[in-house]
């Protein structure tokens, strides 16, 4: 018995540990070079510039000058900006949950039931991407505007008498973000559900679980990696989204992305915009860490 055990459990840390020395070994390490170059050129260096900018003071003309100041961060402690931060987080959470609620049943259907129509379904999920993002978002304006398609249809069936006032509200922004990011939720969910071994589900059924219990105790926990990946893929970019709130939110629904964009393109206060960007990154990072911790603490989520 002892002998078998020793063979069966190679230390997992030994296999996965990446030490600098391992990376520099002739084999393998060079594979990282293209990405490392790309990332340092277009991400790391710009990020450093932003960090530096966020500590620069501005002169009387509003231009960044040399020096060091924390004013840009202090300035953020304003109810107006705090409100925008909270709204961004809430709307991003809302669209992530909506994407999950809409995407999970679809991904489940594609992975478990679609059979030979799987690839067709996958194709249909991607089809909207063939049209420009901008055009698709403009499409929502036509759908949701007071004299738009939705109001027209609802009026004609006498469901409403007054035109719908949903365009340029947080709701329309959330709709737009859910619509745009839905495929990013569906794909990781589909992949993780596809990987669920049918025999394991049969085992659950064999062990007296009805369809719902088998889903709750086996399928759902096994698809957790997909839920995590999908939620991050939707949640992160939607927090910083600025085009959709710009088009569908109007002036009433400014998100942090719009505030940052305004600082760079209209107020030309780059240091303040940089500070805002960095704070958003820190908040997102904190949220991700919190989320991953929460998921890991779930006892049946050992797959992570």
């Amino acid at each position, binding site marked *: *018995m002892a002998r*078998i*055990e020793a*063979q*069966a*459990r190679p230390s997992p840390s030994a296999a996965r540990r990446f030490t600098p020395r391992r990376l520099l070994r002739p084999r393998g390490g060079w594979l990282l070079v293209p990405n490392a170059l790309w990332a340092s050129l277009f991400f790391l260096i710009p990020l450093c510039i932003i960090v530096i900018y966020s500590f620069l003071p501005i002169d009387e003309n509003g231009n960044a000058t040399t020096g060091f100041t924390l004013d840009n961060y202090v300035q953020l402690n304003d109810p107006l900006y705090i409100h925008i931060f909270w709204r961004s987080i809430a709307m991003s959470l809302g669209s992530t949950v909506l994407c999950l609620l809409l995407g999970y049943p679809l991904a489940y259907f594609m992975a478990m039931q679609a059979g030979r129509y799987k690839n067709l379904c996958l194709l249909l999920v991607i089809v909207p991407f063939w049209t420009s993002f901008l055009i698709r978002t403009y499409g929502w304006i036509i759908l949701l505007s007071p004299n738009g398609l939705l109001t027209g249809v609802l009026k004609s069936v006498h469901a409403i008498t007054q035109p719908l006032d949903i365009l340029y509200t947080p709701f329309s922004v959330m709709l737009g973000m859910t619509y745009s990011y839905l495929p990013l939720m569906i794909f990781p969910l589909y992949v993780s559900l596809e990987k669920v*071994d049918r*025999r*394991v589900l*049969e*085992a*659950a*059924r*064999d*062990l*007296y*679980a*009805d369809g719902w*219990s088998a889903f709750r*105790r*086996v399928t759902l*926990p*096994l698809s*957790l990696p997909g839920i995590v990946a999908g939620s991050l893929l939707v949640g992160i970019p939607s927090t910083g989204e600025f085009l959709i709130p710009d088009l569908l939110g109007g002036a009433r629904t400014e998100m942090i992305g719009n505030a940052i964009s305004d600082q760079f393109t209209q107020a030309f206060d780059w240091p303040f915009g940089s500070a805002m960007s960095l704070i958003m990154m820190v908040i997102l990072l904190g949220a991700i860490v919190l989320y991953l911790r929460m998921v890991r603490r779930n006892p*049946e*989520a*050992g*797959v992570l």
Partner: protein
Amino acid sequence: MSDDVTLAGVSKRFGADVVALESLDLSIRKGEFFSLLGPSGCGKTTTLRIIAGFETPTAGEVYVGGENMADRPPNKRPVNTVFQSYALFQHMNVYDNIAFGLQQRKVPKAEIKQRVEAALRLVRLEGYGRRRPRELSGGQQQRVALARAVVNRPTVLLLDEPLGALDLKLRKEMQLELKSIQHELGTTFVYVTHDQEEALTMSDRIAVMNRARLEQIGEPSEIYERPRTRFVADFIGITNFFSGQVQGLDGDRVRFLSDGGLNLCMPRSGSVKSGPSTVAVRPEKIKIAEQAHIGAVNRCEGVVEDVVYLGSTSHHRVRTSGGETIIVLRQNDSGTAVFAPGSRVSLWWEPESTHLLED
């Protein structure tokens, strides 16, 4: 003895032309170690899945513990399965894997704990409850799968090639262990395997299947000693086949003339058709010597073509004067002469070791 599992005229078709099972009738007795043996694609796993409820038969009835299983989903059947690939819940530890069935049936927590621990003891995995399945060896995972099934005390335990993924030595150990566990629990085991040796050593009875049909059903010795069809004789062990003609009946004996000119005699079993037939003789039933035993009925002369030494036994390939090749299995006991290739020998065997096949 009452029957625990009864299949009556069970057929299964996939689509229009794939026949997985053709009108299968089977009765498995209470407490029996029953094996379904056959090559891959013979329908043995389909049979098991029909009993478990994962497949719906196209025709026929399934009874478990006297109750008709029609329209009963797998979770409402008094059977549990040990899956071929174990199908353990990788996201749960060993304890929760084994407790799963009991939790689903709302067994009180204290009883679950006690029964899971007893099951872990039964499969000799005490203290492994907190481990994850992937941290265990193949043999240990196999035991968890077994414990997860037997902890529910099913009427019938279904095992789908449970030892298939283990190496030979471990497989032998697990065969003995499974057998002793079955003895201890007294549960009916229905065991699917393609390994004839495994089926012979473990089973109380074996059903040999081929091409969606049942070929023969019986105790291991019966299947081995008295194969009824060419398939059974060929699939289990090594066999010498003689094609030829049934000449007629001689009292309760059948006279047979092989194509190579051998006159063979065998006991009659069942109806006998005259005309072309096949006769089977096991290699270890054939005696080999320089001179035939006087009075031997089934005998022939030949030349040793080659000898394969296998440790405790040797295979002699003998070519008869009529041009037939006969394999003889001989114990390598001390003091017996060794026949070198080229030496002339006599072969003979008992009529009772000679079997007229049905096909």
